Protein backbone atom coordinates (compact mmCIF):
# COMPACT_ATOMS: atom_id res chain seq x y z
CA UNK A 1 0.00 0.00 0.00
CA UNK A 2 2.73 2.40 0.97
CA UNK A 3 4.29 2.30 -2.48
CA UNK A 4 1.08 3.01 -4.37
CA UNK A 5 1.56 6.37 -6.10
CA UNK A 6 -0.17 9.29 -4.42
CA UNK A 7 -0.34 11.16 -7.69
CA UNK A 8 -0.44 9.49 -11.07
CA UNK A 9 -0.49 11.45 -14.31
CA UNK A 10 -1.04 9.54 -17.53
CA UNK A 11 -0.61 11.11 -20.97
CA UNK A 12 -2.18 14.40 -20.10
CA UNK A 13 -2.58 17.01 -22.84
CA UNK A 14 -3.88 20.56 -22.67
CA UNK A 15 -4.75 22.68 -25.63
CA UNK A 16 -5.48 26.40 -25.65
CA UNK A 17 -7.17 27.03 -28.96
CA UNK A 18 -4.52 26.03 -31.49
CA UNK A 19 -1.65 25.94 -28.99
CA UNK A 20 -0.78 22.60 -27.44
CA UNK A 21 0.59 23.84 -24.12
CA UNK A 22 1.15 20.36 -22.77
CA UNK A 23 1.22 17.05 -24.56
CA UNK A 24 1.45 13.48 -23.31
CA UNK A 25 2.66 14.48 -19.91
CA UNK A 26 3.14 11.53 -17.54
CA UNK A 27 4.47 11.41 -14.02
CA UNK A 28 4.15 9.65 -10.67
CA UNK A 29 4.69 11.00 -7.20
CA UNK A 30 4.99 8.69 -4.18
CA UNK A 31 5.39 9.35 -0.52
CA UNK A 32 8.90 10.61 0.17
CA UNK A 33 9.58 11.60 -3.46
CA UNK A 34 11.17 14.94 -4.27
CA UNK A 35 10.86 15.45 -8.00
CA UNK A 36 11.73 18.38 -10.18
CA UNK A 37 9.97 19.82 -13.21
CA UNK A 38 12.11 22.10 -15.33
CA UNK A 39 12.05 23.68 -18.76
CA UNK A 40 12.48 27.04 -20.45
CA UNK A 41 9.96 29.82 -20.00
CA UNK A 42 6.61 28.97 -21.53
CA UNK A 43 7.42 25.27 -21.62
CA UNK A 44 4.13 24.39 -19.98
CA UNK A 45 5.22 23.72 -16.41
CA UNK A 46 2.61 25.89 -14.75
CA UNK A 47 0.05 24.55 -17.19
CA UNK A 48 0.92 21.05 -15.97
CA UNK A 49 0.21 22.14 -12.39
CA UNK A 50 -3.06 23.67 -13.47
CA UNK A 51 -4.05 20.41 -15.10
CA UNK A 52 -3.23 18.43 -11.96
CA UNK A 53 -5.10 20.74 -9.62
CA UNK A 54 -8.21 21.01 -11.77
CA UNK A 55 -7.84 24.67 -12.79
CA UNK A 56 -7.86 23.64 -16.45
CA UNK A 57 -9.43 20.25 -17.04
CA UNK A 58 -7.11 18.21 -19.31
CA UNK A 59 -8.17 17.81 -22.92
CA UNK A 60 -6.92 14.22 -22.89
CA UNK A 61 -5.37 11.77 -20.46
CA UNK A 62 -5.98 10.90 -16.84
CA UNK A 63 -4.97 12.38 -13.50
CA UNK A 64 -5.35 10.10 -10.49
CA UNK A 65 -4.99 11.52 -6.99
CA UNK A 66 -4.97 9.09 -4.07
CA UNK A 67 -6.57 6.42 -6.26
CA UNK A 68 -9.40 8.67 -7.51
CA UNK A 69 -9.48 9.88 -11.10
CA UNK A 70 -10.14 13.61 -10.99
CA UNK A 71 -10.93 14.34 -14.60
CA UNK A 72 -13.81 12.94 -16.53
CA UNK A 73 -14.97 14.09 -19.91
CA UNK A 74 -13.46 17.51 -20.43
CA UNK A 75 -16.08 18.31 -23.06
CA UNK A 76 -18.82 18.53 -20.46
CA UNK A 77 -19.87 22.05 -19.59
CA UNK A 78 -20.39 23.53 -16.18
CA UNK A 79 -24.15 23.43 -16.06
CA UNK A 80 -25.86 22.32 -12.86
CA UNK A 81 -26.74 18.94 -14.32
CA UNK A 82 -23.47 18.26 -16.12
CA UNK A 83 -20.55 18.54 -13.80
CA UNK A 84 -17.75 16.74 -15.58
CA UNK A 85 -14.39 17.13 -13.92
CA UNK A 86 -13.82 17.40 -10.19
CA UNK A 87 -13.49 20.91 -8.94
CA UNK A 88 -10.17 22.19 -7.57
CA UNK A 89 -11.37 22.19 -3.97
CA UNK A 90 -12.38 18.54 -4.22
CA UNK A 91 -9.00 17.66 -5.64
CA UNK A 92 -7.36 19.57 -2.85
CA UNK A 93 -9.28 17.55 -0.30
CA UNK A 94 -7.96 14.36 -1.87
CA UNK A 95 -4.55 15.47 -0.65
CA UNK A 96 -3.04 17.61 -3.40
CA UNK A 97 -1.98 21.15 -2.55
CA UNK A 98 -0.10 23.76 -4.53
CA UNK A 99 1.48 27.16 -4.46
CA UNK A 100 1.24 29.75 -7.21
CA UNK A 101 4.06 31.15 -9.31
CA UNK A 102 2.53 34.62 -9.29
CA UNK A 103 1.78 34.80 -5.59
CA UNK A 104 -1.94 34.54 -4.89
CA UNK A 105 -2.25 35.12 -1.18
CA UNK A 106 -5.38 36.55 0.40
CA UNK A 107 -3.79 39.96 0.53
CA UNK A 108 -6.15 41.65 2.97
CA UNK A 109 -6.04 38.80 5.47
CA UNK A 110 -3.41 38.38 8.16
CA UNK A 111 -0.72 35.74 7.74
CA UNK A 112 -2.45 33.70 10.41
CA UNK A 113 -5.82 33.90 8.66
CA UNK A 114 -4.27 32.93 5.34
CA UNK A 115 -3.21 29.66 6.90
CA UNK A 116 -6.41 29.25 8.90
CA UNK A 117 -8.52 29.46 5.73
CA UNK A 118 -6.67 26.42 4.45
CA UNK A 119 -7.14 24.35 7.58
CA UNK A 120 -10.49 22.73 7.25
CA UNK A 121 -11.77 22.07 10.72
CA UNK A 122 -14.92 20.30 9.94
CA UNK A 123 -16.29 18.03 12.58
CA UNK A 124 -19.63 17.37 11.07
CA UNK A 125 -22.46 18.17 13.47
CA UNK A 126 -24.73 15.40 12.23
CA UNK A 127 -23.34 13.22 9.49
CA UNK A 128 -19.64 12.42 9.27
CA UNK A 129 -17.81 14.00 6.38
CA UNK A 130 -16.45 10.63 5.42
CA UNK A 131 -19.91 9.18 5.10
CA UNK A 132 -21.24 11.99 2.93
CA UNK A 133 -18.11 11.78 0.82
CA UNK A 134 -18.56 8.05 0.25
CA UNK A 135 -22.18 8.61 -0.70
CA UNK A 136 -21.21 11.29 -3.19
CA UNK A 137 -18.59 9.13 -4.84
CA UNK A 138 -21.08 6.27 -5.25
CA UNK A 139 -22.98 8.38 -7.78
CA UNK A 140 -26.63 8.36 -8.80
CA UNK A 141 -29.23 9.00 -6.13
CA UNK A 142 -26.67 8.35 -3.46
CA UNK A 143 -24.69 11.29 -4.80
CA UNK A 144 -27.71 13.52 -4.52
CA UNK A 145 -28.46 12.30 -0.99
CA UNK A 146 -24.85 12.76 0.01
CA UNK A 147 -24.87 16.30 -1.27
CA UNK A 148 -28.07 17.08 0.55
CA UNK A 149 -26.72 15.73 3.84
CA UNK A 150 -23.53 17.67 3.31
CA UNK A 151 -25.51 20.86 2.71
CA UNK A 152 -27.49 20.30 5.91
CA UNK A 153 -24.21 19.76 7.71
CA UNK A 154 -22.84 22.99 6.35
CA UNK A 155 -25.83 25.02 7.46
CA UNK A 156 -25.77 23.46 10.92
CA UNK A 157 -22.09 24.29 11.09
CA UNK A 158 -22.90 27.98 10.63
CA UNK A 159 -25.23 27.82 13.58
CA UNK A 160 -22.41 26.60 15.77
CA UNK A 161 -20.43 29.64 14.73
CA UNK A 162 -23.32 32.00 15.52
CA UNK A 163 -23.92 30.50 18.95
CA UNK A 164 -20.22 30.04 19.69
CA UNK A 165 -20.81 26.61 21.13
CA UNK A 166 -18.05 25.08 23.30
CA UNK A 167 -17.28 22.62 20.50
CA UNK A 168 -16.87 25.45 18.04
CA UNK A 169 -14.58 27.41 20.36
CA UNK A 170 -12.45 24.35 21.05
CA UNK A 171 -12.10 23.68 17.34
CA UNK A 172 -11.22 27.27 16.63
CA UNK A 173 -8.47 27.08 19.22
CA UNK A 174 -7.15 23.89 17.62
CA UNK A 175 -7.15 25.48 14.18
CA UNK A 176 -5.29 28.51 15.49
CA UNK A 177 -2.73 26.34 17.24
CA UNK A 178 -2.13 24.37 14.06
CA UNK A 179 -1.81 27.54 12.00
CA UNK A 180 0.67 28.94 14.51
CA UNK A 181 2.68 25.76 14.26
CA UNK A 182 2.85 25.98 10.48
CA UNK A 183 3.84 29.64 10.62
CA UNK A 184 6.60 28.71 13.01
CA UNK A 185 7.83 25.91 10.74
CA UNK A 186 8.05 28.37 7.87
CA UNK A 187 9.73 30.96 10.10
CA UNK A 188 6.86 33.42 9.94
CA UNK A 189 5.74 33.58 13.55
CA UNK A 190 6.83 37.18 13.86
CA UNK A 191 4.48 38.11 11.01
CA UNK A 192 1.46 36.34 12.47
CA UNK A 193 -0.90 39.33 12.62
CA UNK A 194 0.40 41.31 9.68
CA UNK A 195 -1.59 41.56 6.47
CA UNK A 196 -0.23 39.27 3.78
CA UNK A 197 0.21 42.13 1.33
CA UNK A 198 2.60 43.89 3.74
CA UNK A 199 5.02 40.96 3.92
CA UNK A 200 8.30 41.11 2.01
CA UNK A 201 8.43 39.06 -1.15
CA UNK A 202 10.40 36.10 0.18
CA UNK A 203 8.10 35.78 3.16
CA UNK A 204 5.05 35.89 0.93
CA UNK A 205 6.46 32.88 -0.91
CA UNK A 206 6.96 31.05 2.35
CA UNK A 207 3.47 31.99 3.50
CA UNK A 208 2.15 30.40 0.31
CA UNK A 209 3.84 27.17 1.34
CA UNK A 210 2.50 27.42 4.89
CA UNK A 211 -0.98 27.93 3.51
CA UNK A 212 -0.68 24.93 1.19
CA UNK A 213 0.51 22.81 4.13
CA UNK A 214 -2.54 23.95 6.06
CA UNK A 215 -4.76 21.87 3.80
CA UNK A 216 -2.97 18.76 5.09
CA UNK A 217 -1.69 17.51 1.74
CA UNK A 218 -0.08 14.22 0.85
CA UNK A 219 1.47 15.72 -2.28
CA UNK A 220 2.74 19.27 -2.49
CA UNK A 221 3.22 21.07 -5.80
CA UNK A 222 5.54 24.06 -5.57
CA UNK A 223 5.59 26.47 -8.52
CA UNK A 224 8.92 28.32 -8.50
CA UNK A 225 8.98 28.73 -4.70
CA UNK A 226 12.37 30.44 -4.75
CA UNK A 227 11.69 32.90 -7.55
CA UNK A 228 12.92 36.38 -6.68
CA UNK A 229 15.06 35.25 -3.73
CA UNK A 230 18.79 35.72 -3.42
CA UNK A 231 21.20 32.79 -3.51
CA UNK A 232 21.41 32.35 0.24
CA UNK A 233 17.65 32.51 0.73
CA UNK A 234 17.25 29.98 -2.05
CA UNK A 235 19.67 27.59 -0.41
CA UNK A 236 17.89 27.91 2.92
CA UNK A 237 14.53 27.34 1.30
CA UNK A 238 15.71 24.16 -0.42
CA UNK A 239 16.92 22.77 2.89
CA UNK A 240 13.58 23.68 4.40
CA UNK A 241 11.68 21.97 1.61
CA UNK A 242 13.57 18.76 2.21
CA UNK A 243 12.77 19.01 5.90
CA UNK A 244 9.09 19.57 5.17
CA UNK A 245 9.04 16.43 3.09
CA UNK A 246 10.32 14.31 5.95
CA UNK A 247 8.43 16.06 8.72
CA UNK A 248 5.00 15.87 7.07
CA UNK A 249 5.60 12.67 5.10
CA UNK A 250 4.95 14.36 1.77
CA UNK A 251 5.68 13.72 -1.85
CA UNK A 252 6.88 16.95 -3.45
CA UNK A 253 6.93 18.08 -7.06
CA UNK A 254 8.91 21.24 -7.61
CA UNK A 255 9.16 23.71 -10.46
CA UNK A 256 12.29 25.77 -10.23
CA UNK A 257 14.07 28.17 -12.51
CA UNK A 258 17.51 27.67 -11.01
CA UNK A 259 18.91 24.53 -12.64
CA UNK A 260 21.68 24.10 -10.09
CA UNK A 261 19.26 24.12 -7.18
CA UNK A 262 16.99 21.53 -8.72
CA UNK A 263 19.91 19.32 -9.61
CA UNK A 264 21.08 19.61 -6.01
CA UNK A 265 17.98 18.44 -4.22
CA UNK A 266 15.77 16.49 -6.60
CA UNK A 267 16.14 12.77 -7.05
CA UNK A 268 14.31 12.71 -10.33
CA UNK A 269 13.76 15.41 -12.93
CA UNK A 270 11.35 15.85 -15.82
CA UNK A 271 12.24 18.34 -18.53
CA UNK A 272 9.56 20.05 -20.60
CA UNK A 273 9.99 22.06 -23.77
CA UNK A 274 7.11 23.40 -25.88
CA UNK A 275 4.79 21.17 -23.87
CA UNK A 276 6.69 18.00 -24.76
CA UNK A 277 8.51 15.90 -22.20
CA UNK A 278 12.01 15.80 -23.64
CA UNK A 279 13.77 13.97 -20.82
CA UNK A 280 13.21 12.21 -17.52
CA UNK A 281 15.75 10.77 -15.12
CA UNK A 282 18.25 11.47 -12.41
CA UNK A 283 20.00 14.84 -12.42
CA UNK A 284 23.11 13.28 -13.93
CA UNK A 285 21.18 11.63 -16.76
CA UNK A 286 19.22 14.75 -17.53
CA UNK A 287 22.28 16.95 -17.54
CA UNK A 288 23.95 14.69 -20.10
CA UNK A 289 20.93 14.50 -22.38
CA UNK A 290 21.70 16.22 -25.70
CA UNK A 291 18.06 17.30 -26.18
CA UNK A 292 18.08 19.09 -22.84
CA UNK A 293 21.33 20.83 -23.66
CA UNK A 294 19.90 21.94 -26.95
CA UNK A 295 16.65 23.22 -25.39
CA UNK A 296 18.60 25.29 -22.92
CA UNK A 297 21.34 26.45 -25.24
CA UNK A 298 18.64 27.52 -27.65
CA UNK A 299 17.78 30.16 -25.05
CA UNK A 300 19.93 33.12 -24.23
CA UNK A 301 22.70 32.12 -21.80
CA UNK A 302 21.78 32.79 -18.20
CA UNK A 303 18.08 32.60 -18.91
CA UNK A 304 18.44 28.84 -18.63
CA UNK A 305 15.93 27.50 -16.17
Amino acid at each position, binding site marked *: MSDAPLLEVKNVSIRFGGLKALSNFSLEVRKGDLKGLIGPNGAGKTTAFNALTG*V*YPPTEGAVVVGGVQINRKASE*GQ*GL*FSRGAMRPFEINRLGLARTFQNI*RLFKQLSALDNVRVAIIARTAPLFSAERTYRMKVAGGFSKFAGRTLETINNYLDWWRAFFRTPGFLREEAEVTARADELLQVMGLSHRRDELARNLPYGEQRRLEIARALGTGPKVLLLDEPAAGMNTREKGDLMVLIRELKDRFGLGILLIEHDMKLVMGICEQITVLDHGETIATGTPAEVRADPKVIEAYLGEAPGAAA
Partner: protein
Amino acid sequence: MYGFLQHLINGLAAGTIYALVALGYTMVYGVLKLINFAHGDVMMVGVYVGYAVAFLMGREHFGTFAGVMLVFLVSMLACAAFGLLIERFAYRPLREKPRLTSLITAIGISFALSYGFQLDLAVNLGGTSYTLLPGAASRAFPEIIVPNQWFEFGSDDQSVIIWNWQVISFLIAAALMVGLQLLVFKTRFGRAMRAVSFDHRVAALLGIPVDRVIAGTFMLGSALAACAGLLYAIKDTSVQPLMGMYIGLKAFVAAVIGGIGNVPGAVVGALALGLCEEFVVGYTSSSWRDAVAFGFLILVLLAKPEGLFGRVQAEKV
Protein backbone atom coordinates in the same frame (compact mmCIF):
# COMPACT_ATOMS: atom_id res chain seq x y z
CA MET B 1 -51.91 30.30 -38.38
CA TYR B 2 -52.13 33.98 -39.30
CA GLY B 3 -51.64 34.83 -35.64
CA PHE B 4 -48.59 32.64 -35.53
CA LEU B 5 -47.08 34.26 -38.61
CA GLN B 6 -47.79 37.71 -37.29
CA HIS B 7 -46.11 36.90 -33.97
CA LEU B 8 -43.18 35.47 -35.86
CA ILE B 9 -42.75 38.69 -37.82
CA ASN B 10 -43.17 40.93 -34.79
CA GLY B 11 -40.80 38.77 -32.79
CA LEU B 12 -38.13 38.94 -35.47
CA ALA B 13 -38.54 42.69 -35.73
CA ALA B 14 -38.12 43.11 -31.98
CA GLY B 15 -35.26 40.61 -31.98
CA THR B 16 -33.21 42.53 -34.53
CA ILE B 17 -33.45 45.63 -32.38
CA TYR B 18 -32.37 43.74 -29.26
CA ALA B 19 -29.54 42.31 -31.34
CA LEU B 20 -28.11 45.74 -32.15
CA VAL B 21 -28.05 46.62 -28.45
CA ALA B 22 -26.76 43.19 -27.46
CA LEU B 23 -23.80 43.65 -29.81
CA GLY B 24 -22.65 46.62 -27.76
CA TYR B 25 -22.71 44.58 -24.55
CA THR B 26 -20.91 41.69 -26.12
CA MET B 27 -18.18 43.82 -27.73
CA VAL B 28 -17.41 45.74 -24.57
CA TYR B 29 -17.46 42.54 -22.56
CA GLY B 30 -15.15 41.03 -25.12
CA VAL B 31 -12.48 43.71 -24.79
CA LEU B 32 -12.85 44.70 -21.12
CA LYS B 33 -14.67 41.79 -19.43
CA LEU B 34 -17.00 44.46 -18.09
CA ILE B 35 -20.77 44.37 -18.12
CA ASN B 36 -21.40 47.90 -19.26
CA PHE B 37 -24.58 48.49 -17.30
CA ALA B 38 -24.86 51.99 -18.68
CA HIS B 39 -25.07 50.79 -22.28
CA GLY B 40 -28.87 50.82 -22.35
CA ASP B 41 -28.95 54.30 -20.88
CA VAL B 42 -26.50 55.59 -23.46
CA MET B 43 -28.98 54.28 -25.97
CA MET B 44 -31.78 56.18 -24.24
CA VAL B 45 -29.75 59.37 -24.43
CA GLY B 46 -29.32 58.74 -28.15
CA VAL B 47 -33.05 58.43 -28.61
CA TYR B 48 -33.62 61.77 -26.90
CA VAL B 49 -30.98 63.33 -29.14
CA GLY B 50 -32.86 61.91 -32.13
CA TYR B 51 -36.08 63.30 -30.69
CA ALA B 52 -34.54 66.75 -30.37
CA VAL B 53 -33.13 66.66 -33.89
CA ALA B 54 -36.46 65.61 -35.36
CA PHE B 55 -38.18 68.35 -33.39
CA LEU B 56 -35.77 71.04 -34.59
CA MET B 57 -35.81 69.73 -38.15
CA GLY B 58 -39.54 70.24 -38.36
CA ARG B 59 -42.45 68.14 -39.51
CA GLU B 60 -42.01 68.82 -43.21
CA HIS B 61 -38.87 66.66 -43.37
CA PHE B 62 -40.49 63.61 -41.76
CA GLY B 63 -40.66 60.64 -44.07
CA THR B 64 -37.94 61.96 -46.36
CA PHE B 65 -34.76 60.01 -46.80
CA ALA B 66 -32.58 62.98 -45.91
CA GLY B 67 -34.58 63.69 -42.77
CA VAL B 68 -34.32 60.14 -41.51
CA MET B 69 -30.61 60.01 -42.29
CA LEU B 70 -30.03 63.26 -40.43
CA VAL B 71 -31.82 62.05 -37.30
CA PHE B 72 -29.99 58.73 -37.31
CA LEU B 73 -26.54 60.16 -38.06
CA VAL B 74 -26.64 62.96 -35.51
CA SER B 75 -27.97 60.63 -32.84
CA MET B 76 -25.38 57.95 -33.59
CA LEU B 77 -22.54 60.46 -33.60
CA ALA B 78 -23.69 62.03 -30.36
CA CYS B 79 -23.92 58.62 -28.76
CA ALA B 80 -20.48 57.62 -29.98
CA ALA B 81 -19.08 60.75 -28.42
CA PHE B 82 -20.97 60.11 -25.22
CA GLY B 83 -19.71 56.53 -25.05
CA LEU B 84 -16.19 57.81 -25.57
CA LEU B 85 -16.57 60.30 -22.71
CA ILE B 86 -17.84 57.67 -20.31
CA GLU B 87 -15.03 55.31 -21.22
CA ARG B 88 -12.40 57.99 -20.91
CA PHE B 89 -13.46 59.49 -17.59
CA ALA B 90 -15.24 56.69 -15.76
CA TYR B 91 -13.89 53.34 -16.90
CA ARG B 92 -10.32 53.98 -18.01
CA PRO B 93 -9.09 55.21 -14.61
CA LEU B 94 -10.44 52.00 -13.08
CA ARG B 95 -9.15 49.54 -15.63
CA GLU B 96 -6.45 48.04 -13.42
CA LYS B 97 -8.57 48.17 -10.25
CA PRO B 98 -10.65 45.23 -9.02
CA ARG B 99 -13.44 44.37 -11.44
CA LEU B 100 -16.10 45.23 -8.92
CA THR B 101 -15.14 48.92 -9.03
CA SER B 102 -15.92 49.23 -12.73
CA LEU B 103 -19.13 47.29 -12.32
CA ILE B 104 -20.30 49.61 -9.53
CA THR B 105 -19.31 52.63 -11.63
CA ALA B 106 -21.33 51.31 -14.54
CA ILE B 107 -24.34 50.77 -12.31
CA GLY B 108 -23.92 54.30 -10.96
CA ILE B 109 -23.81 55.85 -14.43
CA SER B 110 -26.85 53.90 -15.48
CA PHE B 111 -28.74 55.05 -12.43
CA ALA B 112 -27.67 58.67 -12.79
CA LEU B 113 -28.76 58.75 -16.45
CA SER B 114 -32.07 56.96 -16.19
CA TYR B 115 -33.20 58.90 -13.15
CA GLY B 116 -31.48 62.14 -14.09
CA PHE B 117 -33.52 62.21 -17.29
CA GLN B 118 -36.68 61.87 -15.24
CA LEU B 119 -36.15 65.29 -13.75
CA ASP B 120 -37.83 68.29 -15.31
CA LEU B 121 -35.34 70.98 -16.04
CA ALA B 122 -35.71 73.91 -18.39
CA VAL B 123 -33.92 77.21 -18.70
CA ASN B 124 -35.49 80.42 -19.87
CA LEU B 125 -33.34 82.35 -22.32
CA GLY B 126 -34.69 85.42 -24.02
CA GLY B 127 -38.28 84.49 -23.54
CA THR B 128 -38.13 80.95 -24.91
CA SER B 129 -37.68 78.05 -22.57
CA TYR B 130 -35.26 75.31 -23.48
CA THR B 131 -35.80 71.85 -22.04
CA LEU B 132 -32.59 70.41 -20.61
CA LEU B 133 -33.96 67.31 -18.95
CA PRO B 134 -37.16 65.84 -20.35
CA GLY B 135 -38.95 64.60 -17.24
CA ALA B 136 -40.40 61.23 -16.37
CA ALA B 137 -43.43 61.31 -18.66
CA SER B 138 -43.34 59.26 -21.80
CA ARG B 139 -43.31 61.43 -24.92
CA ALA B 140 -44.65 60.62 -28.35
CA PHE B 141 -41.77 60.00 -30.70
CA PRO B 142 -42.08 61.94 -33.96
CA GLU B 143 -43.09 59.82 -36.92
CA ILE B 144 -39.91 60.26 -38.89
CA ILE B 145 -40.81 57.15 -40.81
CA VAL B 146 -44.49 57.51 -41.62
CA PRO B 147 -46.11 54.18 -40.76
CA ASN B 148 -47.36 52.38 -43.78
CA GLN B 149 -48.54 48.82 -44.34
CA TRP B 150 -46.27 47.40 -46.96
CA PHE B 151 -47.75 44.03 -47.05
CA GLU B 152 -51.04 42.62 -46.01
CA PHE B 153 -52.14 39.09 -46.33
CA GLY B 154 -55.50 37.54 -45.53
CA SER B 155 -58.90 38.94 -44.70
CA ASP B 156 -59.76 41.73 -42.31
CA ASP B 157 -59.91 40.01 -38.96
CA GLN B 158 -57.42 37.32 -39.85
CA SER B 159 -54.42 38.84 -41.49
CA VAL B 160 -50.68 39.20 -41.44
CA ILE B 161 -49.36 42.74 -41.63
CA ILE B 162 -45.82 43.79 -42.34
CA TRP B 163 -45.14 47.45 -41.67
CA ASN B 164 -42.68 49.55 -43.60
CA TRP B 165 -40.74 50.36 -40.44
CA GLN B 166 -40.40 46.67 -39.69
CA VAL B 167 -38.77 46.08 -43.04
CA ILE B 168 -36.61 49.17 -42.73
CA SER B 169 -35.43 48.24 -39.24
CA PHE B 170 -34.71 44.75 -40.36
CA LEU B 171 -32.65 45.98 -43.29
CA ILE B 172 -30.73 48.58 -41.28
CA ALA B 173 -30.03 46.10 -38.49
CA ALA B 174 -28.94 43.38 -40.89
CA ALA B 175 -26.66 45.77 -42.78
CA LEU B 176 -25.05 46.96 -39.55
CA MET B 177 -24.50 43.43 -38.33
CA VAL B 178 -22.88 42.33 -41.56
CA GLY B 179 -20.77 45.46 -41.47
CA LEU B 180 -19.70 44.72 -37.92
CA GLN B 181 -18.77 41.16 -38.79
CA LEU B 182 -16.62 42.45 -41.67
CA LEU B 183 -15.07 45.05 -39.39
CA VAL B 184 -14.14 42.51 -36.74
CA PHE B 185 -12.73 39.90 -39.08
CA LYS B 186 -11.47 41.81 -42.09
CA THR B 187 -9.92 45.04 -40.85
CA ARG B 188 -6.88 46.02 -38.84
CA PHE B 189 -9.08 47.56 -36.19
CA GLY B 190 -10.98 44.31 -35.88
CA ARG B 191 -7.78 42.35 -35.56
CA ALA B 192 -6.59 44.72 -32.85
CA MET B 193 -9.93 44.36 -31.10
CA ARG B 194 -9.64 40.61 -31.08
CA ALA B 195 -6.09 40.81 -29.77
CA VAL B 196 -7.17 43.12 -26.95
CA SER B 197 -10.04 40.84 -26.07
CA PHE B 198 -7.63 37.91 -25.84
CA ASP B 199 -5.37 39.70 -23.37
CA HIS B 200 -5.02 43.47 -23.27
CA ARG B 201 -1.68 43.42 -21.47
CA VAL B 202 -0.10 41.18 -24.08
CA ALA B 203 -1.71 43.25 -26.82
CA ALA B 204 -0.11 46.37 -25.37
CA LEU B 205 3.29 44.66 -25.39
CA LEU B 206 2.79 43.86 -29.06
CA GLY B 207 2.38 47.55 -29.80
CA ILE B 208 -1.39 47.59 -30.22
CA PRO B 209 -2.82 50.96 -29.07
CA VAL B 210 -5.05 49.36 -26.44
CA ASP B 211 -6.60 52.60 -25.20
CA ARG B 212 -7.65 53.60 -28.68
CA VAL B 213 -9.04 50.17 -29.48
CA ILE B 214 -11.14 50.14 -26.31
CA ALA B 215 -12.35 53.68 -26.93
CA GLY B 216 -13.23 52.71 -30.51
CA THR B 217 -15.16 49.71 -29.27
CA PHE B 218 -17.20 51.89 -26.95
CA MET B 219 -17.93 54.37 -29.71
CA LEU B 220 -18.99 51.65 -32.08
CA GLY B 221 -21.20 49.94 -29.52
CA SER B 222 -22.82 53.21 -28.51
CA ALA B 223 -23.53 54.19 -32.12
CA LEU B 224 -25.17 50.83 -32.78
CA ALA B 225 -27.21 51.29 -29.62
CA ALA B 226 -28.38 54.73 -30.72
CA CYS B 227 -29.55 53.27 -34.00
CA ALA B 228 -31.34 50.45 -32.19
CA GLY B 229 -32.94 52.88 -29.79
CA LEU B 230 -34.32 55.00 -32.62
CA LEU B 231 -35.74 51.94 -34.34
CA TYR B 232 -37.35 50.91 -31.08
CA ALA B 233 -38.78 54.38 -30.52
CA ILE B 234 -40.23 54.37 -34.04
CA LYS B 235 -41.80 50.97 -33.39
CA ASP B 236 -43.11 51.99 -29.98
CA THR B 237 -43.93 55.58 -31.11
CA SER B 238 -42.77 56.77 -27.71
CA VAL B 239 -39.69 57.59 -25.71
CA GLN B 240 -39.14 57.66 -21.96
CA PRO B 241 -36.15 57.72 -19.62
CA LEU B 242 -36.50 54.16 -18.31
CA MET B 243 -36.55 52.61 -21.79
CA GLY B 244 -32.77 52.30 -21.71
CA MET B 245 -32.77 50.25 -18.59
CA TYR B 246 -35.44 47.85 -19.80
CA ILE B 247 -34.22 47.35 -23.34
CA GLY B 248 -30.65 47.27 -22.11
CA LEU B 249 -31.38 44.51 -19.66
CA LYS B 250 -33.14 42.42 -22.23
CA ALA B 251 -30.35 42.92 -24.71
CA PHE B 252 -27.91 41.90 -22.04
CA VAL B 253 -29.93 38.76 -21.40
CA ALA B 254 -29.78 38.09 -25.12
CA ALA B 255 -26.01 38.47 -25.10
CA VAL B 256 -25.70 36.02 -22.20
CA ILE B 257 -28.00 33.53 -23.89
CA GLY B 258 -25.85 33.62 -26.99
CA GLY B 259 -22.67 33.40 -24.96
CA ILE B 260 -21.31 36.75 -23.88
CA GLY B 261 -18.32 37.92 -25.88
CA ASN B 262 -19.54 36.07 -28.97
CA VAL B 263 -20.83 38.35 -31.77
CA PRO B 264 -23.03 35.93 -33.77
CA GLY B 265 -24.21 34.46 -30.46
CA ALA B 266 -25.58 37.83 -29.40
CA VAL B 267 -27.62 38.04 -32.61
CA VAL B 268 -29.03 34.54 -32.25
CA GLY B 269 -29.77 35.13 -28.57
CA ALA B 270 -31.54 38.38 -29.35
CA LEU B 271 -33.70 36.84 -32.06
CA ALA B 272 -34.56 33.95 -29.75
CA LEU B 273 -35.48 36.36 -26.98
CA GLY B 274 -37.53 38.59 -29.28
CA LEU B 275 -39.52 35.61 -30.55
CA CYS B 276 -39.93 34.10 -27.11
CA GLU B 277 -41.23 37.35 -25.68
CA GLU B 278 -43.60 37.94 -28.55
CA PHE B 279 -45.07 34.45 -28.34
CA VAL B 280 -45.48 34.52 -24.56
CA VAL B 281 -47.14 37.93 -24.75
CA GLY B 282 -49.19 36.92 -27.78
CA TYR B 283 -50.61 33.80 -26.18
CA THR B 284 -50.94 34.98 -22.56
CA SER B 285 -50.94 38.61 -21.49
CA SER B 286 -48.73 41.60 -22.11
CA SER B 287 -48.24 42.20 -18.41
CA TRP B 288 -45.87 39.21 -18.32
CA ARG B 289 -43.57 40.66 -20.97
CA ASP B 290 -40.91 41.88 -18.56
CA ALA B 291 -40.73 38.59 -16.70
CA VAL B 292 -40.05 36.50 -19.80
CA ALA B 293 -36.49 37.64 -20.37
CA PHE B 294 -35.37 36.97 -16.85
CA GLY B 295 -37.10 33.64 -16.59
CA PHE B 296 -35.34 32.72 -19.81
CA LEU B 297 -32.02 33.95 -18.40
CA ILE B 298 -32.28 31.88 -15.25
CA LEU B 299 -33.15 28.77 -17.25
CA VAL B 300 -30.14 29.28 -19.53
CA LEU B 301 -27.82 29.89 -16.61
CA LEU B 302 -29.06 26.70 -14.98
CA ALA B 303 -28.64 24.50 -17.99
CA LYS B 304 -25.80 26.06 -19.97
CA PRO B 305 -24.24 28.97 -18.10
CA GLU B 306 -21.66 29.69 -20.78
CA GLY B 307 -24.51 30.45 -23.20
CA LEU B 308 -25.43 28.76 -26.46
CA PHE B 309 -22.23 29.61 -28.31
CA GLY B 310 -19.93 30.69 -25.52
CA ARG B 311 -17.03 28.69 -24.24
CA VAL B 312 -16.07 28.30 -20.62
CA GLN B 313 -13.16 30.64 -20.14
CA ALA B 314 -10.87 29.62 -17.35
CA GLU B 315 -9.12 32.50 -15.69
CA LYS B 316 -5.42 32.59 -16.52
CA VAL B 317 -3.55 31.34 -13.48
